[in-house]
């Protein structure tokens, strides 16, 4: 096969016709293979393989927020999750009307499937029971300043996983939010 033609032309025997030396057409490819693998190594190290994915976020335009003509959403259709420092989530459901006797149940959960996902699914089934359509659920995501970017991505991701149709990233400006933040010992500003 591709062995080197080491025997050379050899001496021509006397009496034979002098012919043009027949050269082997085989080339030693070892060097080429070396080069090939060198380039492969270079490309493997200098390039990135998987293209990052993106998550689209649409924020309501600032002018829209100021418009107050839309009727406020029923609080019993909502759930609020506040993302706090140290990978903690404070989840609560605001009551429709607040008076002196109102009690608020505040859950402190995490980002695991048992935490946030369970909370969302529980809320979905509650809304389903009360209003007949689980897609009516509106989740307000309120990141506190000390929460991390990963927390927001995880929370948004959880919306996709649980197929929550309506959600928004809002600022924690409610009076309840400040109470919750204060009780959890997290700064709101």
């Amino acid at each position: 096969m591709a062995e080197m033609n080491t025997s050379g032309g050899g001496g021509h025997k006397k009496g034979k016709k002098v012919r043009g030396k027949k050269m082997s057409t085989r080339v030693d490819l070892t060097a080429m293979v070396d080069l090939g693998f060198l380039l492969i190594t270079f490309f493997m190290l200098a390039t990135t393989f998987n293209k990052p994915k993106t998550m689209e976020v649409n924020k309501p335009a600032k002018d829209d927020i100021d418009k107050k003509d839309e009727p406020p959403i029923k609080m019993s259709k909502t759930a609020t999750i506040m993302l706090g420092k140290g990978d903690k989530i404070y989840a609560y459901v605001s009551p429709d009307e607040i008076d002196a006797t109102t009690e608020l149940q505040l859950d402190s959960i995490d980002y695991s499937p048992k935490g946030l996902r369970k909370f969302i699914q529980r809320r979905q089934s509650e809304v389903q029971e009360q209003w007949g359509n689980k897609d009516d659920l509106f989740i307000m995501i309120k990141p506190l300043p000390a929460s991390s970017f990963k927390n927001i991505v995880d929370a948004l991701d959880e919306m996709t996983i649980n197929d929550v149709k309506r959600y928004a990233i809002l600022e924690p400006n409610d009076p309840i939010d400040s109470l919750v933040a204060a009780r959890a010992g997290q700064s709101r500003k």
Partner: protein
Amino acid sequence: MPKVKIPRKSTAIDMTAMCDVAFLLLTFFILTTKFRAQEAVQIDIPSSTAQIPIPDRDIMLFQIAPDGRIFFGLDDQPTRLKLLDRLSSEYSMPLSDKQKEAFRTLEVWGMDIRSLPEFLDKDPAERAKLQQPGLTIDTLGGNHQVEDLILFSRQENNNLRIAIKADKTTEYRSFDKLIQALQNRKVNKFNLITSARLAKE
């Protein structure tokens, strides 16, 4: 007794097939991968189940480091030059051709716009070593540098999409500042860059 002679075989192997494989793999890597962009700062992106691939062209990229510094980059070199022209007239800083050329190849940068000329004067090795302080961002009025960048870039290239690449540990506070700046410039739609992950059961 005659010795049993083991026929001596050639140690040379046929390299043709191996060569074919090597170059096939090489072609594969050249075609499927993308050169790793030069990074001003190391960013570890979070993962998500999002499936939308990042568009190939016309991207305005904001990077947010864990410490909150914000960096800016445009992928398209002609747009970069147009942006630089706008900046040099708006901020009244004349630039030499050498500085422009340096800016054209600058993938990502983050500093006060007024200190750009000085930065562009340095040679590439020195630039790579320098810790960039991050863009000057002030959403409460006064210094509109980031908003200017958004506005000018979008005026120069209308198809730009905004991508935000932030570290896992970046605090929401710096992310929010950038969002405020974007929203002040009527950008309400943007992409967060994440790496792919399978949904947990």
